[in-house]
Every structure is written in C-alpha cells, then in structure tokens.
C-alpha cells in the first residue's frame, strides 16, 4: 500500500470551496512574499530601472494620446449641459476636477492594465512554460525577486507618474478646446484649474494610483508566475491579468471614493 500523498489537496468543505480557499491562500502568500522580499537585500536596482523604463517610457505614446483625447472629448461633451445654464466659464473647473479626481487615474490604470498587465502576464507565463523560471530557481538566482519584485515595484512607482502625466495632457487637450471655443486665455484657464483642485484631490489621486499600480503589477505577476504549463496558459495568463486587474481597479476606485468622501465630510 503506497503512502498517502501529501501533495493532494484534502477535501475539507466541498472541492469547489476548497479550491477557492486555496486560491485565496495562494494570493495572500504571493503578496506576503513580495513584501518580505522587497525589503531584503540584494536589491535589483538596475532591473527596477529597466522595468520602470518598460512600464513608464514605453507607455508614454499611448497615455499621451488617450489623455489628450479624453481631455478634448470630456470638455466637448460637458459644454452643452453647462451652456444651458450659461455656465461654460465653469468648464476649466469641471474638467480639472473630473480629470484629477477620477478620469486621469482611471484611464491611466485601465490603459496600463491592458498594456503593462498583459505584457507582464504573458512574459512571465511564457518563462514558466519554457522552464526559464525553473532554470533561475535551480541556479540560486532568486527568480521571485528578479522577476516579480522588480516588476511590481516598477508599476507601483510609474503608474502615479503616468497618471500625473495623463492629467496634464488631458488638461492641455481641455485648454485647447476651451481656448478655441470660448477664447479662454492660458493664464485664466490655469488660474481656474488650480483655484478648484485641492491638495486632497491631488493626494488622493496619487495614492489611488499607487494602489492601482501595485494591483496591476501584482495581478500580472501572479497570473504569469503561477501559470499552468502549455502555450494555452500564456494566453490565459495575459487575459486573466487584464480582466482581473481592471475589475480590481474599479473596485478600488469605488472604495477610494468612499474614503475620500468620508475625509471631505470631516473637513
């Protein structure tokens, strides 16, 4: 009689609930391992910079285009409603609040989830399938630190930077639209914008961008690093990285809205 397998999961509740609990445990262990390893040397400074370049600089064209168009479209779509009340002069205030509080961080996070998250998921999954991660493991080169910690650090650092950039480009688009329609001067537009947005707006926007960046990096890495074998796993990991991180970004947006509203009510 062979000994019982210690690898086989033991059924405690039902197989389905067991699997769900085991998955949650896996995710928690993965996140915990990140926080443990990010603090311990050796630090992968050079690889973090390389990943920051991949995440940040390579996303600039897409973020520039989407941010700029979002600024123009949002301004254009808001104008008819405001003009009914003769309040088109409020356009800079409205657009800046919308861009800083919600649209900027959200659009940046969604673009990053699509571009960066899928890229990380597919790359790590393909490395898993072709045994490159195992090769790092057996040569004692700590693949988790080299592949996961660096990528999550890069997304956590770069998504807030990209968000601020997207907001700036969005405001530029909005200004060009307002300038061409209402002949608002640059000075007046800037003064309206900075007269409206508060420190809390910028701080909350940056904070949630950090959370979005961490989520996108972590989800992409988790899906890729734990991908099942086979080429099918690569596609599934990339897809799951995008879908899961987009879903989580929206949930986090909802939570951050509640928190910021609660803070505002105290002010």
């Amino acid at each position, binding site marked *: 009689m*062979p000994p019982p397998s210690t690898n086989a999961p033991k059924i405690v509740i039902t197989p389905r609930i067991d699997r769900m609990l085991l998955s949650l445990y896996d995710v928690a262990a993965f996140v915990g391992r990140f926080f443990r390893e990010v603090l311990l040397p050796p630090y992968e400074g050079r690889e973090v910079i390389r990943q920051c370049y991949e995440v940040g600089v390579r996303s600039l064209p897409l973020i520039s285009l989407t941010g700029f168009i979002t600024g123009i479209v949002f301004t254009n779509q808001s104008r008819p409603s405001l003009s009914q009340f003769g309040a088109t002069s409020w356009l800079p205030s409205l657009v800046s609040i919308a861009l800083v509080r919600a649209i900027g961080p959200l659009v940046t996070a969604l673009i990053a989830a699509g571009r960066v998250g899928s890229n990380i998921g597919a790359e790590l999954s393909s490395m898993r399938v072709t045994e490159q991660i195992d090769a790092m493991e057996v*040569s004692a080169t700590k693949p988790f630190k080299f592949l996961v910690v660096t990528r999550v650090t890069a997304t956590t650092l770069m998504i807030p930077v990209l968000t601020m950039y997207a907001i700036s480009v969005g405001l530029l688009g909005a200004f060009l639209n307002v300038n061409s329609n209402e002949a608002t001067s640059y000075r007046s537009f800037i003064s309206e914008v900075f007269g409206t947005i508060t420190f809390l707006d910028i701080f909350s926007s940056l904070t949630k961008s950090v959370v979005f960046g961490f989520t996108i990096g972590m989800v992409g890495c988790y899906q890729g690093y734990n991908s099942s074998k086979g080429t099918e796993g690569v596609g599934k990991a990339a897809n799951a990285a995008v879908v899961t991180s987009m879903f989580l970004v929206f949930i986090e947006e909802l939570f951050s809205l509640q928190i910021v509203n609660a803070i505002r009510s105290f002010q």
Partner: protein
Amino acid sequence: MNNQPKKLAQTAETVIEIEGLYVTFGDNEVLKGVDLMLHRGENLVVLGRSGSGKSVLIKVIVGLLRPDQGRVVVLGQDVIASNDTELDQLRLKVGFSFQSSALYDSMTVRENLEFPLVRNVRNLSRADINRAVEEALDDVGLKQAINQVPSELSGGQRKRIGIARTLMLKPEIMLYDEPTAGLDPITCTEINNLINDVQERRGASSIIITHDLTCAKEVGDRVAMLFDGQFQRVGTFDEVFATDDKRVQQFYHYNFTE
C-alpha cells in the same frame, strides 16, 4: 560509435542518496519508493518510458518538486528538510541542464552565461566575468555565438549553451534532462562527448535522464531503468540489458536492431 560501455567510476563516496521516494500528482503515483545512490565522479544514466518519472526524480533532487515521502540527501544535505537559503547554497553545487535548454530569451548568450555568475559570486571584476564566459563558451565550442540571442541558435547550440551556463558555477553534480532529445546523430555525439568531458575534466558526478541508448552507452558508468515507479534494473549497460524482461528488450531492440 563507441561500443564498449564505460568502466564504473572508482570511488565509494556517495554524493546523492535517495531512499524510499514517493511522488504523486493527484491520483497518478509517479515514483513508488525509489532508492538511488550516485557516487563521486560517476555518470549514472536513468532510462525509462516517457512519463515514467525520470524528470520528476531530478527535479526532486534540486528541490523544484517536493516528494510525498522519502529521503533525499545531496552532498550530505537533506534536501527535503532544507529551508530556502540552504537550498540555494546547495543549488550552487548542483547544475541542472533542462530538456528545453531554458535559455533566457530576452538575453544574449553572454548575458545568459553571466547571469548565474554575477548574481551568486561577489566582487568579480569585468575581466573575470569575461574570462569565465569565454572559457565556458570555449568548452562547448561556441565562442562565436557570444553576442547572439537564443532564437538565433540551433537546437544543438542551445543545448550546449544551456550546459555552458550550468557550468559557470563549477558544479560538483550535473543533472541532464534529455540532453540529446530531438538532435541529429552528429550533434548527439557532440553532446555525449561534452558530458564525458564534464566528467573527466571537471570531475563532476552526473545523472543523465534519457531514452537514447547510444547516449546511455557512451556516457554511462551505470544505467538504471525506471519502470512502474521503481528502478527495476541497475548496473552497467550490459548488465541491465542481459535480461529476458520484455520491456527492457523492447527498449534495446528499438534502438539497436532496427
């Protein structure tokens, strides 16, 4: 082809000792009480059908897979009881050559070879690193490939670069997973010669997983046949195949009688 099986390595020191190893994936019992010893300086070939658990065995040796039960002692260290740091220390002494070569496809050959070295050996100068890379490439006869990326290499070249990368840390034990799979006979001979060279020049002890009997005969001091989750026959090449066991004979005739 060298038709004379190799002589048994003359050393009694054991570098790998496995006792009662059981590995199960779901309902599939892959290894059912495997016992194995590898002596210093010896080349041990593990033969067996596809899916018989040969690769699983060497993955357990380096701690990539955790067995359900059993004892695995490598260079005096209990692999199963080791923590991550202890495992990493042990892995510096054990090289693993993957069936797929597992070269890092985003890096050049030079970067692939440098990777384990610069991340494990401190205070190396650029000149030391370059020298080590060039020596390793020289050993596998691929100096000209130094700036190429893996996608530009042939299957045989990738295998040799994979072995060169493994040799960068000067391991005491080498584990080869299907080193000649999918290669033409000439390249197979080159790989076999390389495995023998690693044994003779570097004094490494090796486990070679294969179902290529020519490779087994050319490189193996001992051969172990894995069937039904256990080693059914262990000995020199001739001893292992001197049997009426149908499965063993099928193995032999497919390779040598056709």
